[in-house]
């Protein structure tokens, strides 16, 4: 590897990483997780690091601060910040840089703020440690930054404890904390991933604002290309610890050089062709449902919609919208206090244990987390075979034949029969869950956020598989999701939920074309697009409307 000589380094260069190798300990052996990555960062620049899980993007982000997590080590390469080598530098030297010159914004602010101390005390910690300012000055500065990040009550919010502040606000308070010492570099590690889209846009706006006005550089780490498109000047695509391609943000989005990047770009552009609904008796009818947990306040108010045979209904909403509770009422886990669920025109008992076996067979469910949706102690053939034996009990030979057939349908083969879930990838586990649902030969499958725990490319494969199975078997799907790209890819009809109520429902294209309900409008406009100018346009539009 060639070391750049001093002369070739431009004066605005802040960080240069060359040949970085990071190892992680697995089963007692060191294995490379980052396999030689070069990276540089200039003042005033935002570099987007993008990749799927296992790409090593967060690990690289932390390495830029000379930090390796427990069980990891920075095994080779150089990390040069303004002439200082950070790899394996003494802890005291790193302490004088971290938080002061290079700051970090974590994925979950709720977990990363210390629950025992007030926000402003945590804000002031690093400036006070470096004797930059007095507590009073730090407080004034915090107020100023809180205000610039559009936090409500900038003077008072700092005196709250982390659990007293909402998730989106806390994330912004963490951005503010990173700004406390006016650092040269800020590392954003998936700062909006855990947030709802309508909250995400607020945080993105705040980050963009801050980076533009201060003279710092930033590394923005995410799995979402559309998010990174809004902020980055340059993008680096990572896969399995290696750089796939790197380049100017706009030109990469317009014309990616590598197929992997092109695949990532194409991922959210899938659109289902919708046929108009036929007039017929609905398969599932949900009527005026009101329900709450443990005699608490109602989380669902008067919810009603229908699912027709062979069609897909998507229930969309953000956290707290009640979309998951709807699924729990339909499945009988959460008995409703008012209203009724009809299946094939027949009333269903609110209680799961009062429903008969044949009814239960006709609708199956696929869950959000494939990791916990299959029993880790059962083999694949038992997971898929159990519903066959339970509902049909056709004998050993026939069961084995059906299991093979189902594996074939989900594009796996007989080599999977004797495997345990720990020997499967996330996508394969989700396929097994689909096969388990199909084994009952259902008429309706309820899919609860089935793609949200998966990487984007894998998620797309799963959606394609579900679509193909629907075309072949003419089942209905009820899709619970927060992701509008998924809705476009799979739904015929859409139900939009907000705070436990249905705000809009109908055929997808009708709901998605204006005029919308106010909330649908907000939701639709908050979903990031690949277009780098999207955020600016949305903000301009919103300002125009509110003016």
């Amino acid at each position, binding site marked *: 590897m060639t070391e750049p000589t001093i002369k070739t380094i431009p004066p605005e260069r802040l960080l240069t990483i060359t040949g970085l190798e990071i190892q992680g300990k697995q089963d007692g052996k060191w294995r490379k997780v980052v396999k030689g990555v070069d990276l540089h960062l200039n003042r005033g620049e935002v570099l987007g690091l993008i990749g799927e899980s296992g790409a090593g993007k967060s690990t690289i982000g932390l390495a830029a601060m000379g930090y390796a997590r427990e069980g990891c080590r920075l095994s080779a390469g150089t990390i040069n910040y303004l002439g200082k080598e950070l790899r394996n530098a003494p802890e005291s030297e790193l302490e004088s840089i971290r938080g002061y010159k290079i700051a970090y914004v974590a994925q979950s602010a709720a977990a990363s703020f210390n629950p025992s101390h007030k926000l402003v005390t945590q804000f002031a910690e690093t400036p006070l440690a470096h004797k930059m300012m007095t507590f009073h000055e730090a407080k004034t500065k915090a107020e100023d930054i809180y205000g610039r990040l559009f936090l409500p009550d900038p003077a008072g919010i700092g005196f709250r404890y982390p659990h007293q502040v909402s998730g989106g606000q806390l994330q912004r308070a963490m951005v503010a904390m990173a700004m406390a010492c006016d650092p040269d570099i800020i590392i954003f590690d998936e700062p909006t991933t855990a947030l709802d889209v309508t909250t995400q846009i607020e945080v993105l706006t705040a980050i963009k604002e801050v980076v533009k006005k201060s003279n710092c550089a930033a590394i923005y780490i995410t799995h979402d290309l559309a998010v990174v498109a809004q902020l980055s000047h340059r993008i680096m695509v990572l896969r399995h610890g290696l750089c796939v391609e790197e380049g100017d943000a706009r030109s990469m989005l317009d014309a990616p050089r590598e197929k992997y990047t092109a695949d990532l770009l194409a991922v959210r552009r899938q659109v289902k062709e919708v046929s108009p609904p036929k007039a017929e008796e609905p398969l599932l009818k949900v009527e005026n449902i009101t329900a709450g947990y443990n005699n608490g306040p109602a989380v669902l108010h008067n919810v009603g919609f229908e699912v027709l045979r062979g069609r897909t209904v998507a229930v969309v909403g953000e956290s707290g919208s009640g979309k998951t509770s709807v699924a729990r009422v339909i499945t009988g*886990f959460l008995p409703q206090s008012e209203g009724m669920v009809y299946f094939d025109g027949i009333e269903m008992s609110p209680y799961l244990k009062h429903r008969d076996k044949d009814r*239960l*067979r006709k609708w199956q469910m696929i*869950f*959000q987390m494939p990791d916990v949706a299959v*029993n*880790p*102690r*059962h083999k694949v053939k038992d997971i898929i075979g159990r519903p066959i034996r339970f509902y049909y009990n056709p004998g050993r030979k026939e069961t084995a034949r059906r299991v093979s057939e189902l594996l074939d349908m989900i594009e796996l083969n007989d080599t999977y029969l004797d495997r345990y879930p720990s020997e499967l990838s996330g996508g394969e586990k989700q396929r097994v869950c689909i096969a*388990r649902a199909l084994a009952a030969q259902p008429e309706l499958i309820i899919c609860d956020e089935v793609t949200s725990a998966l990487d984007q490319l894998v998620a797309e494969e799963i959606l394609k598989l579900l679509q193909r199975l629907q075309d072949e078997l003419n089942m209905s799907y009820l899709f619970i999701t927060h992701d509008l790209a998924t809705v476009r890819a799979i739904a015929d009809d859409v139900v939009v939920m907000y705070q436990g109520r249905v705000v809009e429902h109908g055929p997808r294209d009708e709901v998605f074309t204006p005029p919308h309900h106010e909330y649908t409008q907000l939701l639709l406009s908050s979903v990031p697009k690949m277009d780098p100018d999207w955020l600016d346009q949305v903000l301009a539009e919103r300002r125009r409307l509110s003016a």
Partner: protein
Amino acid sequence: MKKESKWIKLYKASPLSARIGLAIIIFGLAVALFAPLLAPYGESEVVADVWLSPGGEHLLGTDQLGRDMLSRIIYGARNSITIAFITTLIAFFVGAFLGLTAAVTGGWLDHLLSRIVDIFMAFPTLILALMILSVLGTSVPVLIVVVALLDATRVFRLARALAMDIAIMEYVDAARLRGEKTLYIVRREILPNALPALIAEFGLRFCFIFLFISSLSFLGLGIQPPTADWGSMVRENSGAINFGILTPLYPAGAIAVLTVSINMVVDWFLHRSAQIRA
């Protein structure tokens, strides 16, 4: 064949402390099993003078009545281990069965059992045991039942907590939605996942019960003479210590060695299953 190689692999991965522990446990069990063959003298046979020092015909000397100490310790292994083992089995089956069922069924049964257990756990076991034994008197069956039931409350807590953690898993939801019966869910979905933790708990419980019964015996309220039992033997010979005779330390040491060994094996087992989960 496959199973065997798995065990060998497991053994090869184990640290020295666990191997030593395992060897001692197996040795202890063998001694308990073949006590009459191994012991040079009878269990309560008076063979020599009081408190002879170790050596010669009596490897560990004699006790306060002139019985051979080594023979008594060998028979003691049989009595003490067997009684503690039966007690642990009862405690375990009652506690684990009720705990798993309470977690899966929920409702009034869970509430009732949990409240009862709360009350029992808000009370030191030894004191409770002493009070019950003062009323019922001390005999081996009473001892076993009382200690087993008191310890079952601890097992109940653990089993219930374990099952609660597993019952919220989506694969259990999937089984419920399929219409599976409670017994199937407990047996096929929950038990296999709770098993490693329960096995470790069995080891710890056995240790605890073994120590507990030894303490009761030491206080004179457990296993009664002339039965050879390690805890009672410490008590019977305790007077010797003031003359500088180490006799009471032998049975006490035997208890210590066995419980330490079990703890070493369990610790490794817990460490290993924690690693697998992570």
